[in-house]
């Protein structure tokens, strides 16, 4: 479904990504593991069209989407739930969610349906639907960000460290929600540092270090890999 071949990204003289190859098939849940600054967010931003690759190719459903503008990518069905949330701070929770469905703005009924689904997933958002997004706590904002991404009815959702700053209870919920989202037919590409939890729900994984992929395989294999246990799972 999604295929990155030999993608490199440069920021000025600094090479952030080096010859990345990633493949995600329809319905899969794939995790990207990597330390801080390894390049996970950069990969996402490159797929989203926020960064331009200096070389390599990106294909989605067999079509080259390299160089597409970010809004085109959303229309294609690739939606990112970014690190740092990037919410509309002064709009209400519900308005944020509605904006999430911007590309489907013509289908009013479908939007309503999606909104109900998101509220079912995150009841707290419904309680706070008229509050300004900026006034919510870190964790609540994270839920809103995911909810907003879901509103776009993505074929592929990319989640950048969704568990960051969340309470354990919520983290657990979050991972099961991700699993649920995946099961309901959305392909998921997940960036995580919490390798333990991520590998438990993922089908496959890639390990990124210093902007390059050093390891990849199915999640079981990765989970039992010594190097990974040492670096990402601890103990």
């Amino acid at each position, binding site marked *: 479904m999604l295929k990155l071949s030999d993608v490199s990204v440069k920021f000025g003289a600094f090479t952030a990504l080096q010859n990345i190859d990633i493949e995600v098939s329809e319905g899969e849940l794939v995790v990207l593991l990597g330390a801080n600054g390894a390049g996970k967010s950069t990969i996402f931003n490159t797929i*989203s069209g926020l960064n331009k690759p200096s070389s390599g190719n990106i294909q989605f459903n067999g079509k080259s989407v390299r160089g597409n503008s970010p809004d085109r990518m959303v229309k294609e069905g690739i*939606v*990112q*739930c*970014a690190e740092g949330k990037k*919410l*509309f701070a002064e709009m209400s929770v519900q308005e944020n969610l509605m*904006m999430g469905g*911007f590309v489907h703005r013509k289908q009013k009924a479908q939007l309503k349906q999606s909104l109900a689904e998101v509220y079912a997933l995150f009841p707290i958002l419904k309680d706070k639907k008229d509050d*300004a997004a900026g006034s919510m706590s870190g964790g609540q904002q994270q839920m809103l960000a995911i909810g907003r991404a879901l509103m776009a009815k993505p074929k592929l959702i990319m989640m950048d460290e969704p568990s960051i700053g969340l309470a354990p209870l919520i983290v657990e919920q979050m991972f099961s929600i991700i699993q649920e989202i995946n099961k309901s037919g959305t392909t998921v590409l997940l960036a995580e540092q919490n390798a333990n939890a991520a590998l438990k729900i993922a089908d496959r994984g890639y390990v990124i270090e210093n902007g390059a992929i050093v390891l990849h395989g199915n999640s079981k294999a990765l989970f039992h890999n010594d190097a990974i246990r040492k670096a990402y799972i601890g103990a």
Partner: protein
Amino acid sequence: MELFFQQLFNGLTLGSVYILVGIGLTLVFGILHVPNFAHGSLYLIGGYITLMVMKGLGVHYFVAVILSILAIALLAVLMERFVFNPLRDAPPIHDKIAAIGLVLFFEALISLIWGTEYHRMTTPFDSTITVAGVAMTTQRMLVIVVAVVVVVLLQLFLKKTMIGASILAMAQNRDGAFLVGINANVVAMMTFAISGALAAIAASIASPINLVFPAMGHLVILKAFVVVIIGGMGSVPGAIIGGMILGISESLGATYISNDYKDMIAFLLLIIIMTARPKGLFAKGVY
């Protein structure tokens, strides 16, 4: 009492013009987070185009106004593309300086093309109606009517359509807007186009009351900033209230306090408001 109502009417006219200019400014201010000092130039050129189209092509006033709106909207879009978009990541002071560069350029250009003399714009709305001792020219009534209509339409657009909401969304988080599939460039251009169109409308309907001349943008822009600040930047309802406060306080201040000091009254008002509420009257609680 007659005088009071006359001045109230005058204040309404003035306020309507301030509102139209102020809303354009506040929208751009909200999106770019930068005061566009070149907004006065859009106003200026808007006035000239209406006048020159009327004179040159001999078309009806309304036709000229529509052409002017289109032209200024386009010009504003070009401004966004070639000046403000490249400066998106620069510190805010830079936009101000670039805007000043634009002001200097456009004023010189206008003087070069159409000379530096004052022009008067004559319109079909030149008759006077007197109601209960209050003299109203039809042009002045047109100013108020147009302002009301434009403001209502704009508010509907921003609040009731997703495209309009996307403008508000982008004002708050540009990257976030990208992520939900809003083409931020299109929105930025659209905002500038609206802002330019409003400036053109304001200039076209206010010029028959005043004159058309190269410095006419200066008069309005400073007051428009007062309107924007009183109303809170990016807030359309705020700009409406700000415009009315300013227009009416000016006309009543000139009547009951002093004409010489009436500008000071308006600006002192702003100083007092900002001293009490450092972010303007209608600043939002969050952030």
